[in-house]
């Protein structure tokens, strides 16, 4: 039996009285690709932000590889000591919707700075790996470019390389193509697909339905703060759930 890399149990989160996540539980196994789809405001991104500890949960429990990252006891939020959090944090990476590259760093420095100065790894080795990553991303000629000199798609590929350079066990994507036009979307999706082929564990929040269907081992459809449908892509996309059908119907209309 494969172990659960990530486990989120009974996650609750509210903003100003609005319950964004109502008791959501998900688990991610090693090597698995999980896509989370659903209408805007359904809580997908919040779930991802909770998983990556950017947003603090109100209730529930999150653990990575059996180690608790955050939990609640009698409505009080608890976290392990700092050094344990650091260790837990190092096992996941996140690719943002709007890249969040560091504008004052070159592409190379964006990728290598954290491995060198946070993980304290050997500089030559990190550079070698970064060049390999850039080659994989089709950006070998952009080493010395600054983010402002790149297209959105190129920026997102650098951001993916930056996340991968830290060798995370699990990589989260928060609507990685939502800020891109269709042409640039394609190149980013191709890169993510190639990562799936390498069996890198990924959790992807996306609005790209065809992509989610093709790439995922499992799909979650979220609606109004709960998981409405969950299963294999075939199961989810042929689900008889009314909200899912409505959502997909709108999507197919937009596709024409």
């Amino acid at each position: 039996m494969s172990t659960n890399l990530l486990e989120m149990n009974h996650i609750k989160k509210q903003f100003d009285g609005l319950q964004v996540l109502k008791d959501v539980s998900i688990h991610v196994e090693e090597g698995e690709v999980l896509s989370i789809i659903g209408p805007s405001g359904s809580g997908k991104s919040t779930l991802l932000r909770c998983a990556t500890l950017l947003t603090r949960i109100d209730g529930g429990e999150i653990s990575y590889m059996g180690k608790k990252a955050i939990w609640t006891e009698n409505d009080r939020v608890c976290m392990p000591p700092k050094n344990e959090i650091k260790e837990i944090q190092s096992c996941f990476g996140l690719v943002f919707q709007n890249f969040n590259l560091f504008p004052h760093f070159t592409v190379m420095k964006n990728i290598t700075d954290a491995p060198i100065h946070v993980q304290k790894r050997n500089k030559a080795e990190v550079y070698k790996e970064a060049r390999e990553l850039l080659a994989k991303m089709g950006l070998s000629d952009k080493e010395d470019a600054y983010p402002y000199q790149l297209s959105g798609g190129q920026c997102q590929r650098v951001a993916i390389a930056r996340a991968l350079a830290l060798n995370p066990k699990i990589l989260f994507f928060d609507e990685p193509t939502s800020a891109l036009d269709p042409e640039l979307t394609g190149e980013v999706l191709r890169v993510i697909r190639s990562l799936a082929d390498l069996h890198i564990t990924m959790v992807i929040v996306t609005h790209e339905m065809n992509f989610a269907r093709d790439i995922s081992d499992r799909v979650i459809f979220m609606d109004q703060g709960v998981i409405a449908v969950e299963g294999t892509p075939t199961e989810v996309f042929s689900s008889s759930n009314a909200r899912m059908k409505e959502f997909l119907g709108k999507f197919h209309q937009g596709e024409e």
Partner: protein
Amino acid sequence: MSFQVMLQQLTTGFGSTLVIFFLTLLFSLPLGMVVYFGRVSRFKPLSWIVKAYISIMRGTPLMLQLLLWYFGPFYLWGMNIGGYKFTAIILGCSLNYAAYFAEIYRSGIESIPSGQYEAAQLLGYNKSQTFFKIVLPQVVKIVLPSVTNEVITLVKDTSLVYSVSYIEMFALAKQIAAAQTTVLPFVIAGVFYYIFNFVVAWVMEWFEKKMNYYH
């Protein structure tokens, strides 16, 4: 008094002006950062005190502050202020400018998108690495034009120390003008200030260009 003597005396005075200028910058630029951290401290009493400090520094004339810093210790505690004038001037100017710089830094730091902090957190940078490697270099670029403005104002504000009878270029120009009944010293002093500010602006522009390697 010949033009040459006048020029010579004013040049000496300009030396004192420069000393006040550079010392004030030396202290107020870093002090502004300290004030900023106090201003945004989560410890509310500290943040309130610093807010009041900034408010007073910006809300009252620098000349009045200089008079208070210099004569205050004498009137309050009967302190012998004989050799204390220069210290009072640097103290007064530095504390005043630190308040302005703190607000400039704040505007710069607050304009850094939260995504930069989030990316840094996800990449494992600790708080000080995030500030010094990610935030500060970007802030420097953003605040440079505002800092230039403030520095140029400081050049001119050094003339305010004449209020505590400290002899620098402006005080000398006033003295010579009164004694020789001529406006020439004022013209010369004006040219000095202008040239110096021209240089300041040029240096800062060079800095801005250097920071233009990214957008």
